[in-house]
């Protein structure tokens, strides 16, 4: 009995966000020759992003496998759809003044952004490796283009080239991994992989290769090497997207694989342990010596990937420990991704605004005296930095807390301690930025320059992210309840 060629309506509901994102992306492309007003596209893209995000609730209502089990609509995927959709909407808002300032085409940018978001959405819902691969490529290829979007800038082009070459390189690994897993298990459906012999070296190797590919995407050391360059060179709103969106998607897939495939969960914990430690140190130590804020934030996002990997180590440990429940560890990952995405987008948006035309003012020294010149901006950036640092009443604190908790509950005390040490190193460079903003006098050039304007869209982004950061830091209950609902975690197992 052949499956029907016509997908059922339910199937469409389950991929509604992707459909909407792709649809709006296409729509924007179609309208591009006819509409000159760039704000119109902003509006359209925002509508699309938000619509897709909002309607992911519908796909959540039709929980279950779709398209013959290739994708799965569950709370988990809804969560990630909400996340990447919100990220996309925020990036749209943040990009509007940026594109205008840098005189870049708006329509294509938004279209690519929406396609990339759709790719991430696919990644989040994928239950099958090929679908995941296509989703990954959607987001990746769009990302390559976005990274090089400032064509006139040497750095932007270089960023795109590095991202593209190394990204494809890693994708090849990922793909090879899929091939081996397929060879070892005869299937690419995640939930059928249990059939394979978990002791099979081929399966191990395949999963390792997949891990390598994903680690590249989430910038885990020693695959993090591309991150600072690409982040620095890419247009700043794109950097904001990179640090939040694709990472979330990749982590989503990683969670699915390493929570679902039995062979993948068995004693993989050392790999995550080592990767986590390396990543944390690589990010934090690298950030210590940075003078460019954008680059510093890039290193910091490496470090945060490391923290998330700590939770992964806990996840894998828990699943290998028969009595343990990995629930809190999953929750830690998810919560962290939310809090982190919010903060990073906010921070990069400010960097994007302060950077000025041509992104000339990226050095930390350019922020000297910001506390006096633009107190609200400085306060907001400080809030983000403190959240990254993990100070209480910010989202970052709870994020870190849950990871610590997951690590401690998995008896990974030393990992927790190493993470603590890294938090302290991190505190140093985040705090240094705050110090510069508040405790240094501005340079003569910056003092003479007019105040940086913050258009309404950017203010909206900042308002949303800042309030979200505080909200998650003060009352994380709702988000936690959502994350911890049994269907979300149970859906994975």
């Amino acid at each position, binding site marked *: 009995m*052949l499956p029907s060629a016509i997908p059922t309506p339910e199937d469409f509901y389950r991929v509604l966000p992707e459909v909407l994102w792709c649809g709006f992306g296409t729509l924007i492309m179609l309208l591009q020759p006819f509409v000159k007003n760039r704000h119109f596209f902003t509006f359209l893209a925002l509508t699309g992003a938000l619509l897709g995000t909002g309607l992911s609730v519908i796909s959540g209502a039709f929980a279950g496998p779709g*398209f*013959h089990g290739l994708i799965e609509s569950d709370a988990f995927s809804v969560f990630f759809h909400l996340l990447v959709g919100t990220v996309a909407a925020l990036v749209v808002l943040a990009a509007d003044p940026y594109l205008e300032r840098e005189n870049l085409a708006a329509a294509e940018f938004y279209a690519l952004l929406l396609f990339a978001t759709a790719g991430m959405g696919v990644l989040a819902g994928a239950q099958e490796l090929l679908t995941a691969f296509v989703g990954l490529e959607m987001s990746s290829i769009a990302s390559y283009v976005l990274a090089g979007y400032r064509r006139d800038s040497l750095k932007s082009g270089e960023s795109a080239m590095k991202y593209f070459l190394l990204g494809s390189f890693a994708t090849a690994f990922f793909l090879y991994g899929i091939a081996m897993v397929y060879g070892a298990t005869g299937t690419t459906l995640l939930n059928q992989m249990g059939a394979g012999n978990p002791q099979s*070296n081929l399966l191990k190797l395949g999963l390792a290769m997949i891990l390598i590919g994903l680690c590249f995407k989430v910038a885990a050391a020693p695959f993090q090497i591309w991150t600072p360059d690409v982040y620095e060179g890419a247009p700043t709103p794109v950097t904001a997207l990179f640090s939040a969106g694709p990472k979330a998607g990749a982590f989503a897939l990683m969670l699915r694989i390493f929570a679902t495939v039995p062979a993948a969960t068995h004693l993989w914990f050392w790999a995550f342990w080592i990767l986590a430690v390396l990543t944390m140190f690589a990010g934090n130590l690298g950030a210590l010596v940075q003078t460019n804020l954008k680059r510093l934030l890039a290193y910091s996002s490496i470090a945060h990937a490391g923290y998330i990997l700590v939770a992964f180590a806990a996840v894998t440990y828990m699943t290998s420990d028969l009595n343990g429940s990995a629930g809190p560890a999953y929750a830690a990952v998810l919560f962290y991704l939310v809090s982190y995405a919010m903060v990073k987008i906010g921070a990069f948006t400010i960097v994007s605004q302060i950077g000025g035309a041509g992104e000339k003012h990226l050095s930390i020294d350019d922020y000297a005296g910001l506390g006096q010149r633009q107190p609200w901006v400085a306060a907001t950036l400080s809030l983000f930095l403190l959240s990254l640092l993990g100070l209480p009443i910010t989202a970052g604190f709870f994020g870190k807390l849950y990871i610590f908790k997951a690590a401690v509950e998995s008896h990974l005390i030393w990992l927790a301690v190493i993470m603590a040490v890294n938090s302290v190193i991190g505190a140093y460079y985040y705090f240094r930025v705050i110090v510069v903003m508040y405790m240094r006098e501005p340079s003569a050039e910056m003092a003479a320059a007019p105040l940086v304007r913050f258009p309404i869209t950017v203010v909206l982004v900042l308002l949303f992210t800042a309030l979200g950061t505080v909200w998650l830091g003060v009352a994380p209950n709702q988000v936690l309840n959502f994350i911890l609902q049994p269907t979300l975690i149970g859906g994975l197992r």
Partner: protein
Amino acid sequence: MSAQLLVFFILAALSVIGALSLIFQKHPIHSALSLIVVMVALAGLYLLMGAEFVAAVQIIVYGGAIMVLFVFVIMLLNAGLEEHTSISKMAGFPGILLALALTGFVAATVARSAGLFVQVAGDNGKIPGTLSSTRELSNMIFRNFAYPFELTSILILIAILGAIVLAHREN
């Protein structure tokens, strides 16, 4: 040695030689041609395995379209002989050694896991009739894998869009 095996070895040798040639050719156009050799050799192997449709696509799309694109770009950019710089110390001896190590390990692992391959259709490995195979392929693409297939259209759209954005020269 069976004829199939012989053909396999010839094609395998061809592909490896092509790959090596890709590496050692100085001019990109030569490298591109070497890659085409590899692709053709692989297409032959696909045929050997009975995957005619894939072999055809390999030749037409890969060897034809994509590689032509490469050659076109090489010509467009008027790329000359490869500049032989060695700025990266990492990519010198240690890099090559590491790459070889990786290759060796992967090859050894897969070679030794012969018994671990999942087998579904018996040991003969014969794929049911080629004609039906293509038909089944289309069935699978449009039924089982309809969703990713639709997604690839978006992917192509992205690629077009990207190419325009990147290569488009304003005025």
